[in-house]
């Protein structure tokens, strides 16, 4: 009996997921159903928001009950979380990681800093709008968003995937010049980080 509240919560969360009806064909519907029900998250801690992800994925909030679990490498991941402010140095790594993931891939942005810079709005070495550099599927607002909000963001993302609306990876491929131009504007000609021994000569140091 003591679990009734919890089961009710699980039911509410899943009820939201099962309500979509707008799909093109039955194959599309099936594909999207499998995609939304199994989400591998590359938990790449890029900012302070990374601290909210461990409780989301472990026993307290248990995202695995919705089919959301961590992935070991970018090759296996579906979702990358940009967890907060993004310095230029981090942006290089995020772009590289994002491009290593295989399609379909989704990007979830945490916190106000990814929307408009947040408290780093006048910082000299962070980007302000993540949208200009990489395509974003879902924003979770807050400073910082609690695990409950992250779960809600995930469910909203799952709903969009189920309806076939989450297609930011296509947007990135179609508008690659736009994104690349913005990336080069802050990172210079060479966007990808170099991992050579002489990194300190060419990459602007650590």
């Amino acid at each position, binding site marked *: 009996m003591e679990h009734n509240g*919890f089961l009710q919560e*699980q039911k509410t969360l899943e009820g939201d997921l099962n309500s979509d009806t707008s799909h093109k064909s039955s194959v599309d519907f099936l*594909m999207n159903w*499998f*995609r939304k*029900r*199994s989400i*591998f998250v590359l938990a790449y801690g890029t900012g302070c928001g990374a601290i909210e992800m461990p409780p989301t994925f*472990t*026993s307290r909030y*248990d995202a*695995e*009950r919705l*089919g959301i*679990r961590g992935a*070991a*490498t970018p*090759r*296996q991941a*579906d979702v990358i979380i940009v967890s907060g402010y993004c310095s230029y140095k981090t942006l290089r790594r995020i772009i590289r990681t994002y491009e*290593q*993931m*295989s*399609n*379909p891939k989704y990007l979830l942005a945490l916190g106000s800093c990814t929307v408009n810079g947040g408290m780093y709005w006048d910082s000299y070495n962070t980007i302000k709008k993540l949208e200009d550099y990489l395509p974003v599927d879902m924003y979770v607002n807050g400073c910082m968003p609690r695990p409950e909000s992250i779960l809600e963001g995930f469910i909203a993302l799952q709903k969009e995937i189920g309806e076939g609306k989450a297609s930011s990876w296509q947007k990135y491929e179609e508008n690659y010049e736009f994104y690349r131009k913005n990336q080069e504007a802050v990172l210079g000609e060479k966007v990808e980080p170099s991992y050579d021994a002489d990194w300190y000569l060419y990459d602007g140091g650590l």
Partner: protein
Amino acid sequence: MIVIDLFLMLLVAYAVGFLYYGLYRNITARFQRRFGPPVWQSFIDSVKFFFKEESTSHGWMFYLGPIIMMSGAIMTLFFIPFFSSGDSFSGLSAYGNLFLVLYLLVLGPLGNALGVGTAGNPFGVMGVTRGLTRLFAMELPFYIAVIAIMSLSGSADIATIASGQTTFNAFAYPLLFIGALFSFIGMMGQAPFDVVGAPVEVYSGPASEFSGKFLALLMSQSAIFTFAKLVLMVHLFLGGASGFLELLLKTFVLFILVISFGSLYGRFKTPQSVDFLLKVPTTIAVVGLILATWS
């Protein structure tokens, strides 16, 4: 007719393998006091990966790795009969015995090692190195126990060994069973011997460079291979099975036993696991062998 038989064997192993994997994740979740994913979550994961695009390329040997692993798993399954008597679900077991199965058990991992090696991913190579190092130590107690069982029952035919047990070999020769069980925990990739795909150490080890359909293939083969190994263990030590109910019951009991170990214990380092396997289970198996031949 044999083709239909083989197909049905594959289907059963696929379904039951994924069911067990789902249960494994759910039961582990309950051990950690959380709700856990639904039982079919592992199946959903593997189907999703079949729908993903492939973006990596490291030459044809890289792609051959998971395929060799899959064929290794399927061949192992085909040479292990499901039941200890009767022709149905006996697969190709009339054409090969326990020796062949012991060889086939390592075919997949070795093939995959070649594929991983060509990718050049350091974590993949580290995983393979750890796996092969562990393999030397893991095989020793297992082979001692299996060869002892083979000579005690006077046959290398799996169905004959299974049906010839008046009391289960696990109870008649408990030391042999315990020795083999330690190796079996390692073969199932459970703690404390889960050094190959160790999360946070080498990420997912040999699988770290694979994505999309090839990862899905790896997941499917792991489900099939798990079931094949469980059936082999049941035949050797738990008296085999005469029907599906008995088979599922016995494999499930063995499976629960193994994953309970995995949930309760931490992970050994690679040298520690080799050290442990060479000392404790090997000694237990050798003592069991001496006791069994003495009487």
